[in-house]
């Protein structure tokens, strides 16, 4: 056991012993460190005014990630370097290239969103050696709201920043030092801080996690904190015991195993995306539109599944792909087809002390078509009104088998048995599609809320089946929702 959290704030070491388990990084910066450059615009992960960058030690190098300070707990900083807008300024007070570019392009008006954009842009320059196209830049900024500038000047600033050699800055100059310092912090002790009733644990191994959680089944597991953070900041829930997964290397993996793609419960969307997209391009596309860069840098598929929301984006994808969910409690393990996990609204098949270990997604067999569509009010960073995922095994023109799943259409993410039955064994043609569209009405009676009416949900879902048909049969059709936008992988 280690009873302190250790991290670098800029280049200064911090060790904290008495930490409230749900104190956010934002409150810590603004209140304890009085570093007020990082702003609070929503406290819900939506606006990006609080964006900071975390540098983590990965394979001997540093990986920089923009995250929302407002929904991350201080304990999750353990072993990282935390960089804020204040740290970008050179030691002589000179502006960092990304800051200078924002000045040159008039990327700041009121200045309130600015530190967040600066940090998102700084993170981009660490990921991409050369200036990416505008689609990627839009994606990088999807998690940053600006009400003043209309964004174009900020997008231009991203291009301009690359003219100013942003990767050759004082932070890069001290990278070796940072790597060494973070290296000294790495250990396999379980971190346990807090006092009395309110405790924060960060085990470093899956076994330690299993033991801890079994012993403290009332604890709240935190992976990326993109759901849990909001329980605290928005719903004002009090969480006394928190167990954080982020230090467990075994869970933070995605592997192409014998039976399929093994998604560790702790791997975030950003890291999982490329592998998934390689086998299922449409999964990549949906993930690219899930949340924002900041959310994807923290949020996990494991958390999305465990949370069990009917509008979570990954469950329908995983159901249509035929994924298996692997759970563990103490030393006991079990697995199930992922659709069986979702029992009812807010209710999943998970025992106290039991956690998601991994999700295994079979590789697509030859002759399958996999399509997924997200319908929302806005392209980026929006909750789905409907998420549809289709997988069809075709033998020539005949559909051998179909797996169809929807989010947003029922109290849980759910398969569409009537549609599947209507498709299986039929020729893949327009008549079949029409019949399957009709069958959808037996599978779902969606609700009307103000986000979308029942009618819209149902008809659009039917239309998506037709769109899937058109796309899989006529390669020249440009009917994707993502449409003319290239898949932006950052």
């Amino acid at each position, binding site marked *: 056991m280690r009873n302190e959290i250790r991290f670098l704030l800029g280049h200064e070491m911090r060790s904290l012993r008495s930490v409230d388990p749900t104190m956010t990084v934002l409150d810590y910066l603004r209140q304890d460190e009085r570093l007020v450059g990082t702003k609070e615009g929503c406290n819900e992960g939506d606006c990006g005014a609080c964006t900071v960058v975390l540098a983590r030690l990965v394979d001997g190098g540093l990986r920089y990630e923009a995250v929302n300070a407002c929904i991350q707990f201080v304990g999750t900083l353990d072993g990282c370097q935390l960089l804020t807008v204040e740290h970008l300024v050179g030691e002589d007070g000179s*502006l960092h290239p990304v800051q200078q570019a924002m000045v040159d392009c008039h990327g700041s008006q009121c200045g309130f969103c600015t530190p967040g954009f600066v940090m998102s842009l700084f993170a981009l320059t660490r990921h991409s050696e050369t200036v990416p196209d505008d689609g990627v830049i839009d994606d990088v900024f999807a998690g940053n709201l600006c009400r003043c500038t209309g964004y174009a000047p900020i997008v231009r600033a991203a291009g301009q920043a690359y003219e100013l050699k942003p990767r050759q800055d004082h932070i890069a100059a001290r990278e070796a030092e940072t790597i060494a310092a973070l290296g000294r912090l790495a250990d396999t002790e379980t971190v346990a801080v807090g006092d009395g009733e309110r405790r924060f644990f960060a085990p470093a191994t899956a076994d330690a996690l299993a033991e801890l959680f079994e012993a403290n089944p009332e604890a709240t597991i935190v992976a990326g904190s993109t759901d849990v953070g909001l329980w605290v900041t928005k719903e004002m829930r009090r969480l006394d015991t928190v167990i954080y997964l982020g230090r467990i290397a075994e869970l933070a993996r995605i592997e192409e195993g014998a039976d399929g793609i093994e998604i560790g419960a702790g791997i975030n969307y950003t890291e999982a995306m490329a592998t998934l997209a390689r086998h299922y391009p449409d999964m990549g596309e949906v993930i690219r539109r899930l949340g924002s860069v900041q959310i994807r840098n923290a949020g996990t598929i494991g958390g999305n599944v465990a949370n069990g929301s009917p509008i979570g984006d990954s469950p329908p994808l995983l159901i249509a792909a035929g994924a298996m969910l692997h759970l563990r409690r103490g030393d006991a393990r079990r697995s199930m087809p992922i659709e069986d996990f979702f029992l009812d609204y807010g209710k999943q098949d998970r025992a106290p002390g039991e956690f998601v270990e991994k999700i295994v997604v079979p590789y697509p067999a030859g002759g399958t078509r996999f399509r997924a569509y997200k319908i929302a009010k806005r392209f980026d960073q929006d909750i789905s009104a409907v998420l549809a995922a289709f997988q069809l095994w075709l033998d020539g023109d005949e559909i051998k088998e179909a797996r169809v799943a929807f989010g947003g259409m029922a109290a849980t993410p759910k398969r569409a048995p009537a549609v599947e039955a209507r498709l299986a064994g039929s020729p893949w043609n327009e008549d079949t599609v029409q019949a399957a569209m009709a069958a959808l009405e037996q599978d779902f009676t969606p609700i009307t809320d103000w986000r979308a009416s029942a009618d819209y949900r149902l008809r659009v879902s039917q239309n998506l089946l037709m769109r899937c048909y058109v796309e899989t049969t006529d390669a020249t059709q440009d009917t994707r929702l993502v449409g003319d936008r290239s898949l932006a992988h950052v």
Partner: protein
Amino acid sequence: MRSEPVPPSRFGLGQSVRRVEDQRFLTGHGRFVDDFQFAGQVHAQVLRSPHAHAEIRGIDVTAATELSGVVAVLTGDELAADGIAVIPPGATAQNRDGSDMFVPPRPALAQGRVRHVGEPVAVVVAESIEIARDATELIEVDYETLPAVTDTGSAMDPGAPQLYEGAPRNQCLDWEKGDRAATEAAFAAAAHVSSLELVNSRVVVNPVEPRACIGLWDADGGSFTLYNSGQAAHNVARTLATAVFQLPMERLRVISPDVGGGFGTKNFIYPEQVLVLWAARRLGRPVRWTAQRTEGFLSDTQGRDHVMRAELALDGDGRFLALRIVTTANIGAYVSTFGAMIPTNPVAVVLGGTYDIPAVHYHVREVLTNTVPVDAYRGAGRPEAAYAIERLVDLAAAELGLDPVALRRRNFIRPKAMPYKTAMGSVLDCGEFARVLDRALGQADAAGFAARRAESERRGRLRGLGVASYFEATLGPPNERSAVRFEEDGTVTILVGTMSNGQGHETTYAQILHQRLGLPFEAIRFVQGDTGAIPSGFGHGGSRSMQIGGNALLLAADLIEEKAKRIAAHHFEAQEADIELASGACRVVGTDLAVDLMDLAKIARDPSRLPEGMAPGLDAAGDYAREATTFPNGAHIAEVEIEPETGVVHLRAYHVVDDFGTVLNPMITMGQVHGGVAQGIGQALMEHTVYEGETGQLLSGSFMDYCVPRADDMPTLEVAFEAVPTKTNALGVKGCGEAGCIGALPAVINAVVDALKPLGIRHIDMPATPERVWRAIRAATSGD
């Protein structure tokens, strides 16, 4: 401008000077209200009504008061007992019959009844914000809920729930302007009448910085200081001091430091300002409050919310004869500072737009509903007018089978007709509307649109081109004082009563002074938003700052020049007439005798070196009063592509040509247009304020539920300036802050409707969300 010609300078007018304020904004050193800390401070949390309409039967604060760390729990009873007066509106209007409008009392904490979700009911002050939040949950309020009304169109229905006894049918104002008889006569004689029911949707303003304030009380001096995230320090100070706390204005200082965007909503007097000051006085400790985003959604004034019936009368040649608009404006549960005024004259003043329309009549009824109060939002009244007019013109063109551009050209007020007096009495001194529109059409390659539409059709998509010729009048208080102070340390301070909250005033005012007097740009400092440092001011709003404050600064500079020449003449023992001011120095013409203005400022401090009877100091203040309203105008062209199966609207291109008169800093001005257009696009396509009918709950109460545009939602935007400088002020400026938002609403919706026109769709209300568009397509194609 009357200044001597100065050599072109990097920092002069017309240059895209980099912003002075950016150094601190980019490094995280901007100082916004929430960034200030005070010794002994305590934190306030407001308990808000969960009901849209309810009687308060009782409030039990016992448990909250007992929580450790709670310093005070205050309700409307204490407020009344302490004699804190209600928050008055800043402007009211008179009914058509000459009587005063109905203004309900608005106490800072509800007394007896709540009328919108989010209305303050109690305030907890505690040692930490967490404790204050916990304590609000311990307050027990006994509510008896009442039926609520939130919908604008039905607020006046018989049987609709009533908010106030004094406002039968919830109507608080019945106002009109224009010649009703002439308008009716023109309609009666018209060859064609186009008529449209439309909604100018309600918008949640959402500046990224939440509202915040800190109240301080100085017991010795008996005076208050308020740190306020605001757009109008003096107005806030004046109202709070004189009306609410009944003190002389000098005893309430308002400081507005860096402000993270306002767009109108931070101009106003809010209950929380009263609460932090009042609590600070009761407790003798600094009291701070910062809105959470959810609170912002429930308590920042919202924008627009007009339901209109708009009609245009045309003769057989397609000439406009008359315009008639009947509006119901929803101003929310209380009359906010300018809430009652915005739907009146600010709409009327631009009715008629860029067109020669002989008769115009405008009739508005304002209704009180169980919603958050509505007040000025970027454009304030003028977008409502421009949207109605430009939608009508497109509709008329469609109904008559005319080209909408040709119809506009036929009816534009011609340059030769200037000065032109509109039917509403506005006098335009200049404007070249056809030239501006033609340039925009060229920029947008309107000629190539048919081919682009055909290409979209091949892909199963609907394409539309929307044109809007917008017309704005700059408004806001007509006066301003700008002062210049020469400091001992060799810097020069500009003090203004206007209030930048992102518009780059620190830079543009300095450019004006630099250009006019040749003072070194780097030596110029800037002060705004502090009633303790600046004697008077009228803040931000109506695109007024450069026009009023900028011209006031020119007047101050005139006085400085006069004084400087006098002192220089005395210094060199020359005639005043022989002194010229150039490049920041006074010189004796034809000699090499010269003295720098900075040195003159030093000389000016020493009475012994001044001419007889001259007061020391080179400082000066200029008072400017607007001589004539200015009329920014321009053309917006939007091009959209729609997916029929889902109703998703893609904005493919967006073009703007603006006539703002003289442009002082093109980079900053461009920024204003970009930002305004983004907000307009937001309202037109995605920002959807949804109140649940029966309960009056705001359903779209977070950024996740209320879509403001993100980077990806913005099309490529091209902006050009076609300046027709006005002669009505020395700078030649017309104003630029709101224009983008005014042109965008009709341009975008005209484009959407243009795309849907082949299906027989004649109108779609904002926001044109995917579901709404899909629904319209479905109704048009399936007949249900």
